[in-house]
């Protein structure tokens, strides 16, 4: 995909790009599969001899398709599509605001908007709630932690914002009455099991889990709102391209999608504490016996320093690339695409991909030019 632009015909380039798209989904699939087993383990037995004790797989299908896997993979797919389309929208909105590459920017904006709208809304009304139901069914202590429910409660409220006082076991904040019961159990009078029904040793850090979860939740609401605004202004005489403050919102929106993805992961991982494998293996028991505190600090500091540095450089380069933008069409070096190999057979028949088209074969059609990004 990255290096094929000058060497492949349109169809094969699309094929190469499609393989990348497929592989990205496939990669997410296995990562979420492994993590879902840690959230809702099944299809294994713990064998004690020979020592050390270990979990041994008994059923591969059960290990692959744990209860949390399907809800989570769709949640992750939708979130990734949302973030990806938000990036395209952000760059396009920036060009429209700066009155540069207007045609290109509008075309890209129009292309990315339906994706953003579809996936932001699907995540908010379908995949997100579906995953919350799965957590309710299989990880009650986690649900109680992320919503700050201490005592068993019927008609439990859903907090929009709040602060958990862990010692007094109270949550102060803004909430919608009975909504948590309704969403989790599809009945407004259902009882949500509180943290006090579980040993305190098994609680996640309540306020932290609550805060990261609600940050993600509120951002999801914000994305849904952005989606509605985007669609409304697009169909209302294309005002989306002239209302500057909405365009600016779309410019910064991409950062929020990143924050939402990260806080979503934190919700899953912090909410799972103190377990590494839910109700099977505690985090404190999973630590390597030879690992010292100094070593752990060394690696944490190393990664924080390295990645902070790289993040700064990355943002700097990305920003420079966006600000430079694509070259105007008339300056762009073009490649005669009709002479490039456009089927698998052509790729392997041609003698040297560069030499194939230039002189030996006359293109059958008038020369079609493709823009090449320098």
């Amino acid at each position, binding site marked *: 995909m*990255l*290096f094929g*632009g*000058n*060497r492949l015909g349109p169809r094969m380039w699309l094929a190469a790009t499609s393989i990348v798209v497929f592989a990205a989904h496939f990669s997410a699939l296995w990562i979420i599969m492994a993590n879902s087993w840690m959230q809702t383990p099944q299809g294994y037995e713990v*064998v004690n001899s*020979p020592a*050390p004790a*270990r979990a*041994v*797989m*008994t059923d*591969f299908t059960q290990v692959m398709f744990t209860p949390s896997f399907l809800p989570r993979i769709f949640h992750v797919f939708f979130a990734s599509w949302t973030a990806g389309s938000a990036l395209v929208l952000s760059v396009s909105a920036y060009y429209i605001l700066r009155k540069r590459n207007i045609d290109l920017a509008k075309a890209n904006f129009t292309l990315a908007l339906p994706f953003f709208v579809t996936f932001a809304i699907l995540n908010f009304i379908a995949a997100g709630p579906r995953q919350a139901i799965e957590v309710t069914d299989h990880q009650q202590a986690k649900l109680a932690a992320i919503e700050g429910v201490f005592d068993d409660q019927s008609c439990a409220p859903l907090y929009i914002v709040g602060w958990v006082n862990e010692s007094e076991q109270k949550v102060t904040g803004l909430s919608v009455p009975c909504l948590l019961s309704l969403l989790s159990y599809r009945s407004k009078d259902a009882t949500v099991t509180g943290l006090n029904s579980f040993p305190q040793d098994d609680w996640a850090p309540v306020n932290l889990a609550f805060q990261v979860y609600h940050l993600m939740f509120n951002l999801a609401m914000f994305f849904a709102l952005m989606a509605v605004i985007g669609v409304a202004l697009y169909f209302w005489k294309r005002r989306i391209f002239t209302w500057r403050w909405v365009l600016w919102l779309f410019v910064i929106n991409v950062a929020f999608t990143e924050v939402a993805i990260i806080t979503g992961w934190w919700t899953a991982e912090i909410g799972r504490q103190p377990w590494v494998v839910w109700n099977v293996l505690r985090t404190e028991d999973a630590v*390597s*016996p*030879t*690992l010292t505190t100094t*070593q752990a600090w*060394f*690696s944490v500091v*190393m990664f924080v320093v*390295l990645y902070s540095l*790289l993040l700064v*450089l990355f943002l700097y*380069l990305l920003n*420079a*690339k966006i600000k430079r933008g694509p070259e105007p069409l008339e300056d762009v*070096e073009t490649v005669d695409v009709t002479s490039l190999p456009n089927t698998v057979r052509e*790729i*392997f028949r041609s003698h*040297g*991909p*560069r030499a194939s088209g230039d002189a030996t074969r006359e293109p059958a059609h008038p020369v079609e030019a493709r823009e*090449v*990004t*320098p």
Partner: protein
Amino acid sequence: MSLNDVWFVLFSLVIAGYLILDGFDMGVGILHPLVARTDHERRIVLNSIGPVWDGNEVWIVLGGGVLFAAFPLAYASLFSGFYIAFMLVLLVMILRTVAVEFRSKRRSPAWRALWDTVFALTSLALALLLGIAFGNIISGVDLDQQGDIHESLLNMLHPYPLVIGVTAAAMFAVHGAIFLSMKTDGEIRQRVHHYLPRAQVAFVALTTLVVVWTALTKDEVSARYREDFWPIVFPAGALVACVLLWRMLRQGREFYAFIASAAMIGLLLLSGGAGMYPNLIISSIDPAYNLTVDNAASAPSTLKVMLVIAAIGIPLVLLYTAGVYYFFRGKTELESDSY
């Protein structure tokens, strides 16, 4: 041959594949400051591995994955016991990746010089670290009854692994030089041909030293070769490949020289693997504590399921990897989407 043995062979082959593929990337990195002077030349050298280097690096991830899934106890011991060493390997690999990606993103000569230096140093460091790791595996480590390794970083830096580290760097320099010779022409290629014989001499001398040293002092490994005669085909094959490499270069048949060099690297790794078998980690405290293909393996059902996945996946990976190399064959030219 049991299921565990099959996985031992597969693991060895994946690591051999990594060394062959990322080996020439490292070699190109090591040679890069020597053979390329101008910005244009440096870009040519960098882009000779441009479309393939990150695919090559994934083989080490595959190697880690195979070890994790097939021999989890060995994986746990190694990655915990060599914690700081692995962090350094990660640091080097991350910086090397970033150097390739960032280098040409700005025009400033200082910026480019910085990332060129990072690319060369991290390529060299990675080759050294891999050699040092290999040397420690062959030497055996402080592995106790619980399967915990107690080695400090400084303990790992004794002479034997250090020499293997330098040998690895020389080996990858030879491998990378042959690759560059295929992918470049003009002045770059002349300079490559200036350094290639020197790297070959260094490599052969160092390898001879390592082989003698191993045979004389590494009893666990040399005993394997005395007990069983047939594993001798691996080092013997490597020697044949080394001679063929030299002959092919003399005849100017670079592609075959590259194949010979790849075969040589693979066979040298397999020589080590054959010497280790059935051990994965050798304990210097008591041979009874050794982690082997039997006591460190996953359950048979897991190994079976993974074998099915590997049987589907690995041919597919080999097929498209070969396709990519074929597609990007020929001398490297700079294009608008080059690094």
